[in-house]
Structure formats: structure tokens, C-alpha cells
């Protein structure tokens, strides 16, 4: 009788354990945190390492992040060396082998082809990424592909809820495809418009919407621009009939405003990622806001 009771208790514990312990997912950036929420809802415990007002190139491997990675069962990050200055240190310091490689290590930009792969690796050209431009979150087709790659990983991590992840992915796919149609129709007037950007992180948005980037305030990533470059940029911006100067929410708007004052071209501050403005509460809001703000530059 006692033995049976112990057996039942033990079985009960084994059965209850997964229910107590939700898998912990650490997302390096808010956009991937939002994607995890779309696919997993409250089935996972999500922590996000950075916010939309921080420059993810320049994060420090701070103690609170080590503590978060230590507890994670899966990390979802951009990859392609975007986090090279801090993520390797977090993985090393946390001593968490679950997320150092394998199923628990998911790099979003490495699931899709990247653009702007450099043909020559030379830091005279700034802090370039050998694997190509990692800022893939503003191409909805790539985001969908990443979602489809992430779902089986979540299912492997947490087989008990595999059906939920599958169902949520299907639901997300339907809503996302409908939204893409809506966004593309709405953004049609933006096609061929010329823009000047702050940092070269908009190539996926530009390619998707047909925006034409004619210059950058910071042409070499991570290196401050020279005064000669800035004065030639004024001429380029004026001559081309530029539509807008694009800056991300996390960036200092001083350089963009400086150029705007000298050229009369409006500055558009885009959210860049989830949380970058009041409207960008999730991935859908991020795209809605981005397109609204771009269209708003015409007024």
C-alpha cells in the first residue's frame, strides 16, 4: 500500500513537473521576443535582453544578462555576428550548455539568406558583418520564414505543447500573410522614393518596399562620419529630390536633424523594432507604424 502510494506520488510528480516548469526562452532583441510570443503565447517564460531604445551592436555582457542566459532553455537571437560583442561572453560566463549549441541555440538571421554580404573583409570599411547584413526583421517574408524555422525548435523543446505551437504558427501565418497584402497595398506609393539613412540597417525594408537608399550619415558602420562626407551628403540629398531621412528610435537624431535643417528633407524616426514607439506593441504594430510613418513624410 505504502509502495503504491509512493509510486502514485512519484508518477504525479513526474507528470506535474513539466506543468510547473515552463521552458524559459531568452530573446536578445525585442522583435524575436515578439515572434516567440506569437508562436508560444504563455506556454514559455520569455525574457528579452535589450529594448528598442538600445543599440544592439553595443550591449555589454552585464551581470543581469548572464543571469538570464544561465536560466534559459533556449535563446533566440539575430546572429550573423550582430551580437558578437556580448553574446559569446554571456554564453561563456553563464556556463549553460543547453543554449550554447543545438536545439536551444536559434539564430534568426541564419535561417534566411542575407543581403549585403561583403566581398572584401576590411575594417577600413567599418564594423562590417562577414555573414551579411543581419538586420532582417523588417522583411515580412523573411520573418515568416524565421517563424516557420522556430516553431519546430519550440516543439522539440517542449513536446507536450507541440500541437499548440503548430496551431499558433498556422494562425500567425494566416494573419501575417493577410497583413502583408494590406501593407504592400498601403505602401505602394513609397515605391522608388529616395531616402538617406543613419546606419545601414534598412536594406531589407528598402528591398521589400522598393525604397531607394541614396546615402547614409554613417556610411562605415561603427565609425563616425567625416565632415567631408557630411558636406557631400548635403549636396546628394538636395540634388536627388530625397523623400525622407530615416533614423531608428534608438539612434541619436542630432545628425539626421542636422542634415534635415540643411536640406529641408523631413526626418522620419522609425521604430525599427518592437517597442520603438507607442504603436509598435507587437510585430504587426511595428510594420503598421513603420509604413504609416513613412507615408506621413509626404504630408
Amino acid at each position, binding site marked *: 500500500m505504502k509502495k503504491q502510494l509512493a509510486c502514485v506520488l512519484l508518477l504525479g510528480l513526474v507528470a506535474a513537473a513539466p506543468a510547473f516548469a515552463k521552458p524559459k526562452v531568452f530573446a536578445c532583441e525585442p522583435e524575436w521576443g515578439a515572434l516567440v510570443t506569437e508562436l508560444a503565447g504563455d506556454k514559455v517564460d520569455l525574457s528579452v535582453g535589450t529594448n528598442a531604445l538600445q*543599440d544592439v551592436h*553595443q550591449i555589454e555582457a*552585464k551581470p543581469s544578462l548572464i*543571469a538570464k542566459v544561465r536560466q534559459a532553455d533556449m535563446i533566440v537571437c539575430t546572429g550573423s555576428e550582430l551580437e558578437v560583442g556580448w553574446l559569446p561572453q554571456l554564453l561563456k560566463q*553563464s556556463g549553460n550548455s543547453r543554449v550554447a549549441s543545438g536545439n536551444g541555440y536559434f539564430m534568426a538571421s541564419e535561417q534566411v539568406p542575407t543581403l549585403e554580404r561583403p566581398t572584401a573583409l576590411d*575594417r577600413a570599411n*567599418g564594423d562590417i558583418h562577414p555573414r551579411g547584413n543581419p538586420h532582417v526583421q523588417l522583411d515580412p517574408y523573411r520573418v515568416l*520564414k524565421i517563424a516557420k524555422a522556430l516553431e519546430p525548435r519550440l516543439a522539440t523543446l517542449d513536446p507536450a505543447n507541440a500541437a499548440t505551437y503548430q496551431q499558433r504558427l498556422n494562425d500567425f501565418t494566416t494573419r501575417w500573410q493577410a497583413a502583408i*497584402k494590406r501593407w504592400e497595398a498601403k505602401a505602394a506609393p513609397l515605391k522608388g522614393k529616395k531616402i538617406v539613412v543613419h546606419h545601414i540597417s534598412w536594406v531589407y525594408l528598402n528591398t521589400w518596399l522598393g525604397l531607394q537608399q541614396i546615402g547614409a550619415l554613417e556610411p562605415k558602420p561603427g565609425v*563616425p562620419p567625416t565632415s567631408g562626407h557630411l558636406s557631400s551628403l548635403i549636396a546628394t540629398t538636395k540634388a536627388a529630390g530625397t523623400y525622407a531621412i530615416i533614423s531608428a528610435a534608438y539612434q541619436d537624431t542630432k545628425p539626421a536633424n542636422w542634415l534635415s535643417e540643411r536640406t529641408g528633407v523631413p526626418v522620419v524616426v522609425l521604430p525599427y523594432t518592437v517597442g520603438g514607439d507607442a504603436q509598435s506593441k507587437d510585430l504587426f504594430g511595428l510594420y503598421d507604424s513603420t509604413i504609416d510613418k513613412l507615408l506621413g513624410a509626404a504630408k
Partner: protein
Amino acid sequence: MNPHCPSVRAPVAARFKRTLLACAVLATLSTPAFAQDAAKAEAAKVEALEARIKALEESAAATQQALQEARTEIEELKTAQAAPPQPEAAQPETAVAQEEPAPPPEETAGASSNANAFNPAMGVILNGMYAAHSLNPDNYVRAGFPLAGEAGPSPRGFSLGESEVALSSNIDDKFYGQATLSVGTENGEDHVGLEEAYIDTTAMPDGFSIRAGRFFSNIGYLNSHHAHTDAFSDRPLAYQAFLGNQYGDDGVQVRWVAPTDVFLEFGGEMFRGDRFPSGGAGHAGAGVKTLFAHAGGDVGVENEWLAGVSMLRSQTDGGEDGFRGDEKLYLADFTWKWAPGGNTKDGGVTLRSEYFWEDRDGAYIDPNDATLDQPWSGQRTGAYAEAIWRINRTWETGYRYDHLWADDNGPYASAFNPFRHSLMLAWHNSEFSMVRLQFGRDKPNANDTDNVISLQYQVAFGAHGAHKF
């Protein structure tokens, strides 16, 4: 009369009937409210048209999607083409190559079979400086603290600081390795040294990791950090006095990070005990033992902190300062960072302080005359505090105050306690290059003052090594 009504020759009755019908149809088309039947027919037609438009829209969307998918696929193909040369191109077409079975396509696609593909990450640190001292470094005496290890002022004039080459790589699925070679100049001769050479485990469960080889101890804050990440061009006086600048030796380390929301790290190390503050590799080649604990976290988005306590215990036999016996060194460190929005590279303030307390129990053996032995038991302490202001991504300035408290008794008895002020201004062109101007006012003993101005460059190239907090 409607001009469209036909008026060809035909039997009158039939002609009339037909005309009427044709007129009715045409009228229906031009005026929908003409008759109920006509309205129904028209509604059906509209419905059909709407359905057709919808179908067209759907097929357009599908085409759009297919187009986008095709575009993505093309990009993928392009990427594959842009990847490193395929083995066929790299290898000469010989009979040997043909005899070998063709590797499966998944392995060759995009990946080169070139042995160099497994080269470790390599990073190089170069630095050089010009320093003007008001006190000749050859006459520099620090009251109460003999210069041991790499302690002491920088050389006068032009000099190359330590240049480093670091190689690192995952070894397999369970080990990571790193080796750092340093080149320093002593009395006009270059010496290549193996500064670090260690392996780390990467697959231990539950937050444990083990490091073995030659490495810098994890005691205190600065000790485990490479000098090129420091805010000032020289180490604090306490590091110079108690650890010979930086303590590293051959040994093993066990670390554990707790699964908590606040960062908590505990660990211990055993070292050979050949290097200052130890010496003579006592206790059968395991003369130094350390324990350390660090805690850290965030306060809101803009504040970060890290604090620690550590201890080093050495059984020394013939230390560089002539010590033989037991030494205990206790350290406390504290770091606070504030940065607007948490963007530490764009602005903010870092405050840091470390405190050292040393307790020795043994004897002093004069290296020149062993008959001049005397007991050496006593305590010495030291501390520094620094504040660094990151003005923007390019400029940084900081102030540091150092103080050492000597022992009144023993072989290095001194009533004077050395201290130093340092002020620096650094210009960062990028993450990889920096030029630093530093002023120091060093009071090493009661009679001398060393005023120092130094200008230093420091660059890093090659692999991008992530830095510790």
C-alpha cells in the same frame, strides 16, 4: 423610337414581337430599375463579376507570394554561389581525386573542405606610448612596497607596451581553448611570453565550468581583465603592490553560476604558486588557493552593478620580495554603471573601487645575504577609486585615486603611505582604436614626486573578442 431597334423587312407581327423583345433587353441594360426580372439578372451578374475579381485578386496575391518566394530562392542560390570556392575548383583534377568517393552534397554545399577553414579566431592588440616622467624611473622607490612582478612606473620616452596575439577556438563539442602570446621589452631585449594558455569546458551541466592551464585568477574585478580593456594606461597601485600588476599562474578553476535572477557566481582556484605574490611552488606545486564570489544585476534600465569578495592564500617559499611563509589576501570590489537608456557606449558614468587587505605570517630572507633573516608578520592595505565619464561614443574622461597603507614594522617598515592621482582623456575612433592622454601625480615616498604625462595608442585587430562586463 430607340434607334437600335432593328427595322428589317419581315412579317409585321413577328417583326413587332422581335423588336419589342430586343428593345426590352436593351432597355433593361440601360435602366436597371425597369423590371424585377431584369434587376435579378443584373444582381447575379454583379455577383459573378465580384467573384471573378476576388478570384483574380487571390491569384494576384498568390502570384505575388510566389514571386517573393522565388526572389528569396534566387537570393539563396546567389548566396550559395558567393560562398567559398567549391572543392572541385580548389583541388587539382587528378586521378587521385577521382578515385575518392564523392562526399555527400550536403557537406560540400557552401562549405570549403580547406583545412584553413578551421583556423582559430585570432586577435592582435598593439599599443605604444610616449611618457615623460619628472622622476627618473630608475630611482623610483615605493615606500613600504618593493616593486615585484611587473609593478613600477612606465619607461621614460617612447616604448612599446605589451603587444598581444590571442588565438581561440572551440576544440570540440566539450572544450574551448585560448592561448595569448605577449611580447614585451626588457632592457632593450624582446621577450615572447605565454601569458595565457587554457582550456574551458563548455558542456558541463547546471552552470558549472572548469578552466585548466595558465590563466588570470578571477579574484577581484580587474585581475581577470586584460590590461587593454582598462580605463587607465597603468594598473592601480594596489594591483601593483599586492599582485605584481596581475596574478596569473598555472592551475585549475571551478566556477558555478547560480540559477537566480540576480547574477551570483562562486568559484575556487588552485595554482602552482610560482608567481608573485607567491613563489617557490610550495605545497608540492599547489601553493596558491583562491575563493571568489561575485553578485550583480540591474537597477532599472539605466543602472548596473557588480560586487565581489575574494581571497587568495599562498604558501610562499622565496617570493620576489624575500618573503617565506603564509600569506592571506582579501579583496572586495564594487562597480556601478549608469548610462542613459542603458547605452553604455554613448554616454554615462562608471564608478569602481577595490579594496585589498593583506596578512603575512612568516619571515624575510634577504636575497643577497641569507644571514640577515628577520620575522615578517603584519598587515598592509591598499585601495583605489575611479570615476569614468563616457561623454559620447568618441570621448571618455576619468579620474582615479590610489592609496597604499604600509606596515610600521617588518622588513619594509614605512611611516609614509604612497598615493597617486591620475586623470585621463581618451579618444575612440571606433571600437577597435583608441588614443589616450594621461596625467599622473605619484607620491611613492616621502621625498619624491613623479609627475607623468603619457600619450598612448591602443588598437585591436582581427577577431572581435567579446569583453567581460
